[in-house]
């Protein structure tokens, strides 16, 4: 990004995959000066430098294409008034992100660019390159900037301390994601970040300093001047011109924001058959939404290619495992140079030489790159030739490389757990660069410890499990149906368990999508497709009453109309949905003219003639959402109300339509609707949560009182109808959560495996999540998540057999005191008590190897010391500690 210099041969970042150097052709002397230099080629020990690599054109025949070309952060150079190009202390949020990062140019030390001074005051400007038709052509909302600005402000304060003053200048605060509203509130109340509702026009340098002066108008109309040390521009997301070009070549339709055009009911399908889209190219979005789309696109491709599954993939040959039971340990130690990464600091031959002197070590060597393919093959040969039965690799981190070396062991016929790594790179050569002698000593210590441990390692077994190929989807709403449809199209028998009398869920209550599609029509099409599909079995009026088993082998009892059936299935998808909040405020329920959004939708669907007689309509937003006891944004209501407001305006253009809101959150390209609504003369009045509107039926009319934030005056609106945009409330299902051992948050939504990277699955293997049960979301996102859950499920079902890890806990019943701490504490429900009627050790604890993840929580918690973690046994760890103690 130009924040710091890098060399002409570079790796993008330390953890890059592949971790390979690249030559930057535009800056390399060899390429600029036609053949001069070339030093890198001479010096490279593996001969990896090839100046003659040419661009090749490769033609691929594929069954489907997924487009995920991403976005470019908006370039604010065009904004003259912010002088981004001229003022070094005006930076983009991406640049600021690098400054905060430990791997960034300042190693995470928060300093400003001009003078390396620690800033005391930082401002963020929102909507730079978003929601703006004047200075750029991006009238959409970029969806992510509000949240990232708050995150940056909070982290900046963490780095710089409490005294740092952070101010965010915004138009509408759009924290519509899961847990975002809570984060916003904490940022405001706990971290003391200032939020100022104003779009600042100009940044002026303060003469003689590097500081920046801005002028803005506060909410009370006061004009203020303030000086900041640094200003961060929260730049939006935009599609690169070359991507728009590519789309044109592919014949794919784009939206007015140059995003890929999709339909609500097919959220990842482009206008061209067989080509799917995900990520920001589908529309501005954050990471979890991109991950959801990505899985959905994979599912969509899988649906059309299912007959060709497994035709092109390659399988590996299995090698029989040698039995080493009772053998004296024969340890091989391979010390890696990692090019000069390790050898540049540590005396690698010395370490290898030392290893020879250790007990049971029969073979040692050093490798240039232990991870290279030829070394791997060589290592397998050595293991066989030297009849090694334990292996130590002293190299980098097991986190990235252990699986690779374990595979080598497997290929050589050794159990993969007869292996240990000593990290002499990340924990040695990298951190003790300036002290090679001590680093070498440390490497010797680490190798000695690893050898001591590996000598005590035993072959561990991995349990193999068949995966039942049937799927169960709980909830027959739009998300559940989408998941079921996708699973069935990919060849899996699928059962839908719906508690109601028909399929459809909340979508039955909604009039149309913001893109103008008729929901009832699309929905009945989908229901029809589901009912006709031979592979889908719909259970209406049904509920799950018990669940036994675990991933791949669930046994659930389904009760329908008093009849119980047991269903065996390999996976489950939870799509239990949500419903609309029924408020007690605003005189709801006391007058039929005061209704919820869904009740208004019903009137639209029924073409209620009374709608034509309305002269004045008021919408009240955030009813039950974003309040202390329900601190989340319901995500859908702003768009929904605005769309309904437009519909009313269409029915009667003379109608007065008011929307009373706190922040308008028409994220992404939904923003166009907001713009359209304003253009149609719909009046938006902002209220604050501590000064809510009042609704009172008075004779013919309903009087709505609200304080206008611009005029600062109480207004009285006469309304014929008042629509309350009520919160989306999850169908909190503790019982189901308990059946599948999945967590629920304080609001009643299920908690996914990972907020960013695992949004459609649970930490519990074989259980997946989609739709409103995860978080409020519109139909397109529900469908995408339904498909995503299916995709994630298929990756598991496709394996047919699953192997559990060998590194698991095991009880020693003779020492067990039956206190049950392990049973209580295990997040995976792996421990249980041996039955009271058992002949041996009744009442003592046992651990199900299939459910155990080897986290060690039970081992650490067992007061009686009755649990061991295989592969991290006490004697193994003590042996390591003992060898370490020799170092001091």
């Amino acid at each position: 990004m130009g924040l710091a210099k890098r060399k002409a041969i570079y790796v993008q970042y330390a953890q890059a995959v592949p971790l390979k150097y690249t030559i930057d052709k535009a800056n390399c002397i060899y390429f600029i000066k036609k053949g001069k230099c070339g030093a890198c080629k001479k010096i490279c020990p593996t001969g990896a430098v090839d100046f003659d690599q040419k661009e090749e054109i490769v033609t691929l025949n594929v069954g489907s294409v997924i487009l995920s070309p991403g976005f470019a952060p908006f370039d604010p150079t065009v904004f003259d008034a912010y002088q981004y190009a001229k003022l070094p202390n005006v930076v983009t949020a991406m640049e600021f992100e690098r400054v905060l990062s430990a791997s960034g140019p300042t190693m995470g030390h928060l300093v400003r660019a001009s003078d390396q001074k620690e800033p005391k005051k930082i401002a963020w400007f929102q909507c730079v390159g978003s929601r703006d038709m004047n200075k750029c052509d991006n009238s959409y909302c970029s969806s992510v900037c509000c949240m990232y600005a708050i995150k940056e402000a909070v982290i900046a304060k963490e780095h710089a301390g409490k005294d740092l003053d952070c101010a965010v200048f915004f138009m509408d605060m759009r924290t519509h994601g899961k847990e975002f509203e809570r984060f916003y509130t904490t940022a405001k109340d706990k971290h003391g970040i200032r939020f100022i509702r104003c779009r600042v026009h100009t940044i002026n340098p303060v003469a003689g300093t590097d500081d920046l002066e801005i002028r803005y108008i506060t909410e009370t109309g006061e004009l203020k001047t303030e000086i900041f040390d640094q200003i961060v521009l929260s730049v939006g997301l935009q599609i690169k011109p070359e991507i728009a070009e590519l789309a044109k070549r592919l014949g794919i339709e784009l939206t007015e924001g140059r995003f890929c055009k999709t339909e609500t009911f097919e959220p990842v399908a482009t206008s061209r058959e067989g080509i799917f889209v995900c990520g920001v190219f589908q529309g501005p979005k954050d990471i979890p939404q991109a991950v959801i789309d990505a899985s959905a696109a994979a599912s969509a491709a899988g649906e059309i290619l299912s007959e060709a599954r497994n035709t092109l993939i390659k399988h590996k040959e299995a090698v029989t495992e040698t039995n080493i039971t009772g053998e004296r340990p024969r340890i091989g130690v391979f010390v890696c140079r990692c090019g000069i990464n390790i050898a540049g600091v540590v005396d690698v031959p010395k370490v290898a030489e030392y290893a020879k002197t250790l007990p049971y070590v029969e073979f040692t060597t050093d490798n240039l790159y232990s991870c290279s393919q030829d070394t791997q093959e060589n290592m397998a040969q050595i293991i066989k030739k030297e009849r090694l039965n334990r292996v130590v690799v002293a190299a980098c981190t097991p986190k990235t490389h252990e699986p690779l070396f374990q595979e080598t062991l497997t290929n050589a016929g050794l159990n993969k757990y007869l292996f240990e790594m000593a990290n002499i790179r990340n924990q040695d050569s990298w951190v003790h660069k300036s002290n090679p002698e001590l680093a070498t000593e440390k490497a010797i210590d680490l190798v000695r410890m690893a050898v001591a441990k590996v000598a005590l390692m035993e072959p561990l077994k991995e349990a193999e499990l068949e995966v039942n190929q049937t799927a169960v989807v709980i909830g027959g709403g739009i998300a559940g149906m989408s998941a079921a449809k996708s699973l069935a199209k990919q060849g899996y028998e699928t059962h839908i368990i719906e508690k109601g009398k028909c399929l459809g869920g909340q979508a039955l209550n909604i009039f149309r999508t913001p893109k103008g599609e008729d929901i009832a029509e699309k929905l009945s099409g989908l229901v029809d497709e589901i009912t006709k599909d031979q592979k889908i079995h719909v259970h209406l009026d049904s509920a799950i009453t018990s669940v036994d088993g675990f991933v791949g082998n669930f046994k659930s009892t389904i009760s329908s109309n008093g009849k119980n059936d047991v269903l065996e299935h390999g996976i489950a998808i939870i799509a239990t949905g949500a419903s609309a909040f029924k408020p007690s405020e605003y005189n709801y329920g006391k007058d039929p003219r005061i209704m919820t959004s869904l009740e208004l939708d019903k009137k639209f669907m029924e073409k209620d003639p009374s709608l034509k007689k309305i002269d004045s309509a008021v919408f009240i937003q955030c009813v039950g959402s974003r309040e202390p006891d329900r601190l989340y944004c319901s995500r859908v209501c702003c768009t929904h109300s605005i769309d309904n407001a437009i519909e009313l305006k269409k029915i009667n253009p003379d109608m007065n339509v008011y929307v009373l809101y706190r922040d308008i959150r028409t994220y992404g390209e939904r923003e166009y609707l907001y713009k359209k609504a304003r253009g149609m003369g719909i009046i938006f009045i902002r209220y604050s949560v501590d000064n809510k509107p009042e609704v009172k039926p008075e004779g013919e009319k309903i009087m709505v009182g609200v304080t206008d934030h611009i005029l600062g005056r109480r207004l009285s609106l006469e309304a014929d109808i008042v629509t309350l945009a009520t919160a989306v409330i999850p169908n909190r299902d503790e019982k189901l959560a308990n059946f599948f051992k999945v967590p629920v948050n304080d609001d009643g939504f299920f908690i996914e495996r990972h907020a960013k990277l695992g949004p459609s699955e649970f930490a519990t293997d074989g259980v997946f999540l989609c739709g409103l049960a995860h978080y409020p979301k519109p139909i397109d996102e529900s469908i995408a998540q339904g498909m995503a859950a299916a995709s994630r499920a298929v990756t598991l079902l496709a394996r047919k057999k699953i192997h559990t890890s060998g590194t698991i806990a095991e009880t020693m019943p003779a020492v067990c005191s039956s206190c049950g701490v392990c049973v209580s504490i295990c997040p995976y429900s792996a421990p249980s008590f041996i039955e009271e009627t058992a002949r041996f050790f009744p009442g003592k604890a046992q651990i199900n190897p299939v459910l155990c993840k080897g986290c060690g929580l039970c081992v650490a918690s067992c007061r009686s010391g009755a649990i061991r973690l295989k592969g991290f046994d006490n004697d193994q760890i003590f042996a390591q500690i003992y060898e370490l103690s020799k170092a001091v």
Partner: protein
Amino acid sequence: MSHHVIGSVLVVGGGIAGMQSALDLANSGYYVYLLEKSPSIGGVMSQLDKTFPTNDCAM
């Protein structure tokens, strides 16, 4: 079905979305070509510092 279905997919772009698609497809039994313009995959997410709410390093 008359036409021949090919069991492979081309994923264009190796950011977080492209990677997730590619992984899902590969694990479901399809051959995947992952196309990326730059020398390594990871996209914009690899430039981020920490991500909400876990404050995990974006790496």
